[in-house]
């Protein structure tokens, strides 16, 4: 009952005309940027983040949630129509979704993806609402030692899930942590690694990292290939799946939702695994496996809801523990901090309107994508027809505007350029930027918690083993790292990613 009254409170906040309008604007702008090829949710949120600065905190978060879902939707639109996924989780959708598009069933693929995502969003919203209070209660008994150990577990998990070399993933996390120490030391205020430059004195803004590593660097990579990507002139066709297609999709949607919801809760970006896991599961369960890769609707109806459910439940570690599990949530932390909100268990009790309003608006964002955005698909298709030689110019200028709007500081644009070159270099040497971002976000928090934990224990590092909860997290972290290095498991993991 308390759950219902809480959701009621949230709905009352989210349904105010201003917040509905903001959620809608967020969805539209998120789709507009997210549909651009190569631009995933991270870069989209980074670019649009400054738009929310002038709003009050609740409205800002509601708009950001809209941007996030819009970006997700835009990403799957681009991967279905063009076969160019903006981020790794949309790769799976591209396999069968793009095949459907080539057969003239693009509309159905987009439709089932939106319907499935809406179902997933609805269920995941309920999961968040139900789990948030108990988890936040647990979080309140955590001290700095437990927090530090938990973040370590999250990073270990991220290493396990990263693609390619485990060693390189660990190095990326460390580089991210090192970047996070640029700027003032939080206790003594002494400047670190700033080269004496005034414009580095506040450290590096997470949005700059997002736009540099995931926006501009992606443009560099895409420009190598030239104009290879052309949208197929095949008709979109009807958006609504027919009865047989619906029947085929119901179970994959529900299974995908369940998988996504569970994986999304895990610290360390479990959500990224969800679409892969769902695709593998659907393929295993199918009577005729050869249909997969040739436009099987289950290949869209499973992974898309899994992706969306995971995207949504990954809010749980952020809202209850204050720990962002991935780069998108890290940007959310950045947005919250700008508005003076410290994410964590106290949000729910101290700012119930904000907390439940955000949760209700998540559901509303999903609904808007379904009823307003889906019919607009023709508009997004037109946008995708803009040749890349012009599109990337637009992406560059959006990033410039986005960066400048953060602090009105021209030097930030140059930092973004530097980070873009760095990100381009990373891919040239076989490194992934995603673990770096996570290390960057958790780095600052880990330093603070480590410092406090050691202060409490009077410099005794054994505190992480003597405290049972912390010790349990450490054991899990070590176990996951061990598993990550074992050759047999690694092969299995690589298989999941290549399939």
């Amino acid at each position: 009952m308390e759950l219902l009254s809480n959701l009621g409170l949230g709905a009352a906040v989210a349904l105010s005309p201003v917040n509905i309008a903001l959620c809608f604007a967020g969805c539209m702008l998120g789709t507009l940027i997210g549909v651009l090829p190569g631009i995933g949710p991270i870069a989209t949120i980074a670019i649009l983040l400054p738009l929310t600065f002038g709003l009050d905190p609740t409205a800002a978060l509601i708009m950001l949630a809209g941007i996030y879902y819009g970006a997700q939707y835009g990403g799957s639109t681009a991967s279905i129509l063009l076969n160019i996924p903006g981020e790794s989780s949309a790769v799976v959708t591209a396999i069968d979704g793009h095949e459907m598009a080539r057969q003239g069933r693009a509309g159905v693929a987009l439709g089932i993806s939106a319907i499935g995502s809406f179902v997933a969003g609805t269920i995941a919203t309920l999961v968040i609402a139900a789990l948030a209070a108990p988890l936040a209660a647990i979080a309140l008994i955590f001290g700095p030692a437990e927090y530090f150990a938990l973040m370590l577990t999250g990073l270990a998990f991220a290493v396990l899930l990263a693609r390619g070399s485990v060693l390189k993933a660990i190095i990326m996390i460390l580089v991210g942590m090192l970047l996070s120490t640029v700027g003032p030391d939080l206790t003594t205020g002494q400047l670190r690694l700033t080269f004496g430059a005034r414009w580095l004195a506040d450290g590096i803004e997470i949005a700059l990292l997002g736009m540099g590593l995931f926006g501009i660097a992606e443009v560099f990579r895409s420009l190598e290939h030239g104009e290879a990507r052309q949208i197929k002139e095949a008709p979109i066709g009807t958006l609504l799946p027919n009865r047989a297609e619906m029947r085929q999709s119901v179970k994959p949607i529900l299974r995908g939702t369940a998988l996504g919801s569970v994986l999304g809760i895990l610290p360390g970006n479990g959500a990224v695994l969800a679409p892969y896991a769902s695709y593998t599961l659907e393929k295993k369960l199918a009577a005729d496996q050869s249909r997969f890769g040739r436009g099987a609707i289950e290949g869209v109806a499973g992974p898309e809801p899994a992706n969306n459910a995971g995207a949504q439940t990954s809010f749980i570690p952020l809202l209850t523990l204050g720990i962002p599990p991935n780069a998108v949530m890290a940007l959310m932390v950045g947005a919250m901090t700008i508005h003076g909100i410290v994410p964590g268990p106290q949000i729910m009790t101290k700012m119930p309107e904000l907390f439940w309003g955000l949760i209700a608006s998540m559901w509303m964002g999903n609904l808007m994508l379904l009823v307003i955005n889906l019919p607009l698909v023709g508009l997004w298709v037109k946008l995708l027809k803009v040749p890349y030689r012009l599109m990337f110019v637009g992406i560059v200028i959006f990033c410039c505007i986005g960066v400048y709007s953060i602090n009105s500081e021209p030097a930030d644009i140059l930092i973004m350029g530097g980070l873009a070159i760095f990100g381009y270099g990373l891919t040239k040497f076989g490194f992934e930027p995603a673990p770096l971002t996570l290390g960057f976000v958790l780095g600052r928090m880990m330093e603070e918690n480590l410092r406090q934990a050691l202060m409490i224990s009077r410099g005794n590092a054994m505190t992480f083993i003597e405290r049972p909860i912390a010790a349990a997290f450490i054991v899990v972290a070590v176990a996951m790292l061990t598993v990550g290095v074992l050759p047999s498991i690694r092969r299995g993991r690589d298989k999941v990613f290549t399939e």
Partner: protein
Amino acid sequence: MSGAGGVRLRSPQNLVSGLILIAASAFVVWMLSGLSQGTMRVMGPAMLPRWTAIAIGVGGLVLVILSAIRDGDALERWHLRGPVFILAALVIFAGTIRQPGFLVAAPLAMLVAGFGSREVRPRELVIFAVAMTIACALLFRFALNQALPMLVVPALSLNF
């Protein structure tokens, strides 16, 4: 390719990235040399960055060693055209956004960035740049109320 002492270089990519990491790590440790590390009980500002940098250096060392043992990728080619023009565009935007403002900075930056693509068509690019500048000005300044200086020319006492 064969290295000294009969050790065969199996992964140039790992070798170069390992060496870069070691160099970067040494540079960071050197930069931090003036800062105190503190004690376990009271951590100083240099504690975490220094040890993280050292760990990165060790990681780089492992990569270098691995490059001689395990087969890996060759070095990839860098395509410089895109990065060079886009970076030039960023510098131009950064230099002109405060004065004379967005209405000059945006088209200039877009005209330069556009040449980052091999398939650039100048006339089309000019039209696109002008249209995008107007659209962005309307969207960000007026519809979304962002603080973008549009046209600032002190000589004509313009500040818009």
